[in-house]
């Protein structure tokens, strides 16, 4: 009843208004790079964005598969996006993805490099230079087809907790099904990681995420798994309790079995109830999960509202290919700054699968005032038919509009500049001293009148890549907003009145 009332209030005055469709201008050749490879790189292709030059513009890291990965220095301006590939120390081969995080809390962003082979932790040295720090940090890597990553800082920990998800045993060329290899779970302290724990049972995750799904203050580990390869598998949610090995939520605790071709996870509180919804990408269907009974005693039971909300994105909406779609990276961002988060799917055939669309356009689903979504990928200009995999939605030129990078498999990377129109916006960059400098798994809330937008600070999810930087909120026509941070330990900053169209750092 409370949820229905919330939707009604949100839907009220603007019900008849269609969302504004932003113009995305293709910046052709701005990121001269491809994610290449065959079987071992049919998945992956992650994009990471983060500011390592200190100019407020996020750099773009692109995984390369069989080609070297590349870091592009961001030299964009308001009227155009421009990048320059630089020698950074990140030019490893066999890279499937990457996630930025500040492992050692020195204020310089580090990078987890996911590889087919041994993954690396790369320490940021400043000025966009990196060095491998796996040994220095006691990180015991392992040989695997690594496809997923997430990080959190557990309560009281001075060092991050990392999870790596891995895929198929690549030695099993004849009968690979059922050969999902165990991921690894790392804890540490005092500047070093301990020996990892194996994450079993393993069900071939392609996206994992530490997330405080029930607002308990203790994030759990969500895994979206590829049913193509597991046997007896399903989606997973793990308890992560300090000092204890990760432990799966069970049916007795309310966990409901779901088996999809899980490829990506994104989260956002869409309905304003304080609990995140989760978008999960798959093939021929995508999920949008809403907690059935939100509250302090919530069980991990979700209703699939993708159909009702108009985000199944199950087959191409343009281009004439009517075969089912294949979705990879997924992200919520407000691309038109109307104070309603929108949803993006990167699309692309796995690899010459004739039962699925070859011309499979990306989706840009704009949220309407009533909470449902409408397709605007073609009208916005991002309906690329290349073989999309990873992506990043972030403001690349500091104009307050969310831009888009898509990394395609065996095709050129694509980048689009958002040319508006767009409403007002605000960026919030939560920073605290000591470990977990970027407040990972804390929450940022932005309030305009009675309407609160909130999002969790996350390292993980998407497909094989993520962004670290200020969190973006559209404000519509609002001329001011209030913001606060709920820090990872549950303490709350005071609401602050902030000016729109600026990035604000909220220090603890």
């Amino acid at each position: 009843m409370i949820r229905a009332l919330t939707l009604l209030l949100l839907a009220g005055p603007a019900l008849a208004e269609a969302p504004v469709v932003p113009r995305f201008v293709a910046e052709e050749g701005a990121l001269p790079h491809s994610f290449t490879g065959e079987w071992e790189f049919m998945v992956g292709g992650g994009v990471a964005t983060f500011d390592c030059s200190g100019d407020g513009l996020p750099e773009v890291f692109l995984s390369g598969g069989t080609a070297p990965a590349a870091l592009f220095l961001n030299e964009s301006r308001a009227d155009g996006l421009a990048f320059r590939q630089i020698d950074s120390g990140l030019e490893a081969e066999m890279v499937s993805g990457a996630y930025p995080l500040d492992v050692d809390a020195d204020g310089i962003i580090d990078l987890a490099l996911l590889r087919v082979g041994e993954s690396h932790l790369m320490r940021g040295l400043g000025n966009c230079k990196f060095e491998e720090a796996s040994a220095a940090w006691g990180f015991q890597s392992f040989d695997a087809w690594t496809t997923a990553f997430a990080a959190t800082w557990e309560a009281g920990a001075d060092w991050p907790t990392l999870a790596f998800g891995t895929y198929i045993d690549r030695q099993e060329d004849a009968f690979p099904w059922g050969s999902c290899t165990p991921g690894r779970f790392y804890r540490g302290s005092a500047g070093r990681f301990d020996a990892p724990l194996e994450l079993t049972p393993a069900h071939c995750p392609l996206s994992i995420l530490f997330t405080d799904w029930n607002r308990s203050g203790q994030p759990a580990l969500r895994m979206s798994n590829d049913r193509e390869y597991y046997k007896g598998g399903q989606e997973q949610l793990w308890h992560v309790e300090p000092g204890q090995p990760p432990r799966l939520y069970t049916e007795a605790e309310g966990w409901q079995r779901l088996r999809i071709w899980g490829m990506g996870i994104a989260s956002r509180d869409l309905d304003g109830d304080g609990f995140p919804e989760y978008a999960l990408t798959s093939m021929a269907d995508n999920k949008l999960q809403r907690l059935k009974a939100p509250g302090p005693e919530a069980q991990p039971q979700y209703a699939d509202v993708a159909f009702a909300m108009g985000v199944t994105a199950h087959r191409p909406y343009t281009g004439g290919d009517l075969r089912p779609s294949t979705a990879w990276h997924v992200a919520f961002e407000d691309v038109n700054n109307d104070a309603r988060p929108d949803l993006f799917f990167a699309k692309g055939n796995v690899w010459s699968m004739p039962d699925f669309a070859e011309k499979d356009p990306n989706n840009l689903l704009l949220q309407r005032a009533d909470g449902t979504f409408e397709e605007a990928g073609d009208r916005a200009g991002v309906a690329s038919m290349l073989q999309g995999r990873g992506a990043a939605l972030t403001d690349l030129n500091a104009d307050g509009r969310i831009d888009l990078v898509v990394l395609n498999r065996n095709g050129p990377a694509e980048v689009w500049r958002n040319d508006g129109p767009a409403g007002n916006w605000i960026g919030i960059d939560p920073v605290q001293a000591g470990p977990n400098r970027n407040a990972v798994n804390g929450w940022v809330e932005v309030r305009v009148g009675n309407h609160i937008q909130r999002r969790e600070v996350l390292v993980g999810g998407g497909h094989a890549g993520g962004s670290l930087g200020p969190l973006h909120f559209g404000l519509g026509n609002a001329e001011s907003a209030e913001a606060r941070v709920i820090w990872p330990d549950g303490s709350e900053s005071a609401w602050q009145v902030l000016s729109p169209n600026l990035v604000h750092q909220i220090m603890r």
Partner: protein
Amino acid sequence: MLGRRGFIAGAAAGLLAPALPARAATADSAQVLIGWYRLVLELVRHTATYSPPVAARSFGYLGVIGWEALAATRGLTSLAGQLNGLTPLPPGPPVLDEALVLHAALTGGVRALFGNTGPTGQRAMDAMERRMGERAGVGAVQPAASLAHGRAVADHILAWAEGDGGAVVANMGFPLTWSLGTQAGAWVPTSLIRQQQAPLLPEWGKNRPLAMPNGRACPLPPPPAYSEEPGSAFHAEAIEVYETSRSLTDEQKLIARFWSDDPMLSPTPPGHWVTILVDIAERDALPVERVADGLARLGVAASDAFIACWQSKYEFDLLRPVTYIRAHIDKTWEPLLITPPFPEYPSGHSTLSGASAEVLTAIFGPDFAFEDSTHEADGLPVRSFPNFRAAAQEAALSRLYGGIHFRAAIDRGLEQGACVATHAIGLRML
């Protein structure tokens, strides 16, 4: 029993034995046949179009390919002239290597029938062809001619298959547009998946059967007259589903899941029965001609069972228990299993299991006990059955436990399956 992924190594060891004349190569031939079927049981699971009817069709044609490849080298009775529209196979040279003929025929059949599988399936087919071919080719008699004849057998049967109405499956079997029935009790979608707002393969019942004369050869009486009146036969059936679901024992839940056989998460119902036969063949080291005979009859029966069943499903176009129960008994009711996206009557698994059990009973006898380990790798236990009919009864009843079928669909489905099986059993083979 060898593990699935251990099979190639096992097969390779057997095939590395000194080459013998074709007729003496029985063990090798059986391993070729079983090896390819083990792969097919995975490909069925990992090819997106392989809903149960489509899977059954492939098992049908693959069974015929295996049999005809063997018949060519052994002078066994061909199915040409016995199966609808199958013309005489091309003659082969007088001396052939049986294992290589079989290998080439199955390679051609599997590559064609599973050509749409994903990159991993393609890679697995490559590996199977390479490894099995290398082993089977060691010291083979007339290798080039044997491979050519195997391919010719496959080509002939695949060309015949092209015209049956089931060769092309678009959009994973779901029409892009569909008009719902307007009669009381008509099927309505039960899924939240957009693709499944139209029912699966509504034209499948019009396909050309293999052994059955036509899709209406095993007709069914109508289900109980649709009624929303408490006390009516139809309402009573719904109450039975509802009450059963509220008092399920752990054993009944296990049975429901054991026979759930969901597409893309299992070898599907026809693959479940093929697994039973392949496991028996390995356990008992059956001679290749018996394995081929069994796989062909079972495949033919399965393929025809889905044609007969689908013909009836769209003739009666009945709603599912979840639709009725939520509308008239309990709006919060949740069945244990996911309701399949097509009309209810009769139960596909019941028709299929009824047909499969009768075929296997005809081959192995009415008291042939066996263990079913189909889902062992998925974490479900091995189940033991005193005979095939008991397994079919359990499979059929599992749909009641799962909350996806009414009683009539189960009982009439088994009867329809028994009818379908007579046509496969009647084929002149061994």
